[in-house]
């Protein structure tokens, strides 16, 4: 498109210049023809004699007193002007004489002005010839012939005047009857007429020479003009043809010089686009196209290098990718195998887990049934032992010695422990999903009840208790919730130690996922080594000498576990302990249906 565009533009420029050149040639030829044809026409109008002096002479011989017709040479319009002047200038011989001069020697030239002088110039101007005849210098022979004509015409006019004067005298003498004098005047007039005729012939002959000379020169001039016209036209056409051909050749050469390198560049670019990087453009000119070709070739070299580098890099990367791909495939295969194995193992584990869960559940149930049966079966003997021990102490306490009382006291205390142990086992085994009909209590109310039950212990140990007012609202089964906080607060009281400012803090927070409560004390603290163990049933810290059977935290764990929650402790020995319980928000729905806690949002 670009190359075509350049061609079109060059063609358009060439066409434009051709049109301009042809127009110029046409204009030149037209103008030359116009000038030369007009010159012919003017000469044709100019030369013929329009009038003959014959008429004037004839009128004189016939007795005319004036002459009103003269010989004129001139253009038709000039003659018309002179004709008009004739009415005023009856002595038109002078007009004739002046006109001849005017024609021959020109009008506004210095030579004519000098030759015409003041006398003839005025007449010449009155004839309206001023500005119409501009001749620098007439040919010498014509000048001389015209001068002679003027001379003869002077004599002619003199005798015309004489004839006219004689004519007038004759008429006067005729009127007065002076016959002899009239005859003399007639002779005089006839002599004048004879002279007139003589000089008329001389004028005619001389004018003929003038006219012939003019014709000859005009003819030569016309031939010259014609020849010049032909030469001019031929030259113009020849020049135009040469210029046209030159313009064509130069334009074609220019177009070729411009388009050929560009076409080579285009072809080279096409070849390179096909991958022929060995292609080079051969342009040896020193102009911009040569520089463009050099730059193009350099670009191709760079392109080739870049292409080779790129190809090499691609090969390396492709090889690397293939290797990586193989490795990946192997890894994927291995992983898939492993995954299959894992899935198989997971399935087996799941099956085993489910089996175990079933077994554990069954065993748990069996164990619970066994524990319930055991505690139920032991309860009676224990209660009986308690009664019997009490009765023994009451009836025989004073009759046995100190050692006996010590034994019986040990029996009594062990029976009490057994009773508590049985009660704990019963409690632990009784914890389970609660029905919808279970009483529910809000956490603050539950805490208040627990605190109230420990009122005497708080007073005895001077324990200060703080409850976080921002603690979230939470409703739970009354029995479990009270039991939960009884164990936590009871533990805190139990393990307060000798703290100078004993303090228990209860609080809680919630997120979208869970509710969290804590009971914090500044008591004895727990060695982190026991943090997990203390949540197992019947586990107690031996070194603190606490009372109880070690089942409280197990109960808490079981209660929380019903709703999917968990409990833990954060503590260091001697720095107090904080017990946390976390219950999932989602657990409340299940609880509401029968097993999960019910939570009420605070307003």
């Amino acid at each position, binding site marked *: 498109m670009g190359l075509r565009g350049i061609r079109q533009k060059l063609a358009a420029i060439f066409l434009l210049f051709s049109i301009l050149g042809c127009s110029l040639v046409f204009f030149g030829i037209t103008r030359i023809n116009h000038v030369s044809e007009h010159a012919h026409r003017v000469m044709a109008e100019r030369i013929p004699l329009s009038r003959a002096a014959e008429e004037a002479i004839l009128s004189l011989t016939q007795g005319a007193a004036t002459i009103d017709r003269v010989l004129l040479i001139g253009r038709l319009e000039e003659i018309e002007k002179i004709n008009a002047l004739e009415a005023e200038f009856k002595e038109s011989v002078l007009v004739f004489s002046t006109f001849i001069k005017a024609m021959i020697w020109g009008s506004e030239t210095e030579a004519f002005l000098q030759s015409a002088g*003041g006398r003839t110039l005025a007449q010449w101007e009155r004839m309206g010839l001023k500005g119409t005849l501009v*001749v620098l210098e007439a040919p010498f022979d014509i000048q001389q012939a015209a001068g*002679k004509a003027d001379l003869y015409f002077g004599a002619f006019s003199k005798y015309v005047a004489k004839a006219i004067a004689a004519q007038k005298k004759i008429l006067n003498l005729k009127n007065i009857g002076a016959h002899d004098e009239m005859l003399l005047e007639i002779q005089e007039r006839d002599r004048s007429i004879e002279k007139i005729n003589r000089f008329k012939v*001389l004028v005619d002959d001389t004018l003929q020479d003038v006219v012939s000379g*003019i014709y000859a020169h005009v003819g030569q001039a016309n031939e010259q003009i014609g020849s010049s016209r032909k030469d001019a036209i031929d030259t113009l056409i020849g020049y135009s043809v040469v210029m046209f051909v030159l313009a064509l050749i130069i334009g074609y050469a220019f177009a070729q010089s411009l388009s050929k390198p560009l076409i080579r560049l285009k072809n080279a670019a096409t070849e390179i686009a096909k991958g022929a990087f060995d292609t080079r453009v051969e342009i040896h000119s020193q102009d911009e196209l040569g520089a463009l070709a050099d730059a193009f070739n350099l670009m191709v070299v760079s392109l080739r290098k870049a292409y080779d580098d790129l190809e090499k890099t691609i090969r390396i990367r492709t090889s690397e990718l293939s290797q990586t791909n193989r490795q990946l495939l192997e890894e994927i295969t291995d992983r898939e195998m492993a995954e299959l194995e894992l899935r198989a193992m997971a399935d087996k584990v799941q099956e085993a887990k489910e089996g175990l869960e079933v077994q554990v559940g069954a065993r748990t149930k069996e164990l619970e049934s066994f524990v319930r049966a055991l505690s139920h079966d032991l309860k009676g003997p224990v209660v009986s032992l308690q009664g019997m021990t009490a009765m023994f102490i009451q009836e025989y306490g004073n009759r046995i010695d100190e050692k006996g009382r010590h034994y019986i006291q040990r029996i009594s205390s062990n029976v009490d422990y057994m009773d508590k142990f049985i009660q704990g086992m019963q409690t632990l085994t009784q914890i389970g999903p609660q029905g919808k009909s279970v009483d529910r209590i809000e956490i603050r109310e539950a805490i208040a009840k627990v605190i109230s039950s420990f009122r005497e212990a708080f007073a005895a140990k001077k324990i200060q208790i703080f409850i976080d007012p921002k603690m979230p609202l939470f409703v739970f089964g009354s029995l479990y919730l009270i039991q939960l906080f009884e164990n936590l607060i009871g533990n805190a009281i139990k393990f307060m130690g000798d703290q100078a400012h004993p303090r228990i803090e209860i609080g809680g927070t919630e997120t979208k996922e869970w509710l969290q409560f804590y009971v914090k004390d500044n008591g004895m603290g727990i060695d982190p080594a026991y943090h997990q163990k203390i949540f197992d049933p019947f586990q107690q810290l031996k070194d603190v000498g606490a009372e109880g059977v070690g089942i409280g935290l197990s109960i808490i764990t079981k209660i929380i576990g019903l709703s999917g929650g968990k409990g833990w402790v954060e503590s260091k020995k001697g720095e107090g302990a904080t017990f946390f319980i976390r219950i999932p928000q989602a657990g409340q729905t299940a609880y509401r249906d029968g097993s999960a806690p019910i939570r009420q949002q605070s307003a």
Partner: protein
Amino acid sequence: MKTFFRMKNWTLVLLCVSLLGSGRVSANTFSEEVEQLLQQKLRLIEAMVANPVLVALVKKSNRDNQGLSLGQILKIDKAWQTVLGIDDFIAGFISNECADLLKVFQSAYVGFVEIFVSDARGLIVGETNKTSDYYQADEDWWVKAFNQGRGKSYYGDIEYDASAHAEAIALYVPVLDPETQQVIGVVKAVYDFNAIIMEL
């Protein structure tokens, strides 16, 4: 080119005519009446130049100018041509004895609008009007009239006489030494057209 196209076509043609006709007619022939008249005028002038006084004046001029080199003559001629009007040097030729003789002749024979006499080297001796130049020997008419020292009387072409403001015919007559019959000078007399017409 612009001027070329502005010129009237008629002018163009006549200009061509004038340029073509560059040849000069050497011998002018008039009608018998005019020829007789002009011959008469030549005889009149020849009679005038035979005047011993005029001959003596021409001889004196020849003697006076004998020592002038051509370069000096041309220098004087150039100075003459550059003078506007009449200076003392030129006035000396218009009002000298020779000029007086010429003016007497001029007044005796009406029609001679200008007469001047040159010596054998073509230098002005006396004149009735200021001539255009001082040195006349470089003119064709002078050479023809001098005729290599043999002398020749003749009349010339019709010309415009600037001093007379009229067309006229020039007549050329050599001044002969009566003793040797050698040409010692040339006289040019310009005769007015109107005077010729009046005499025809």
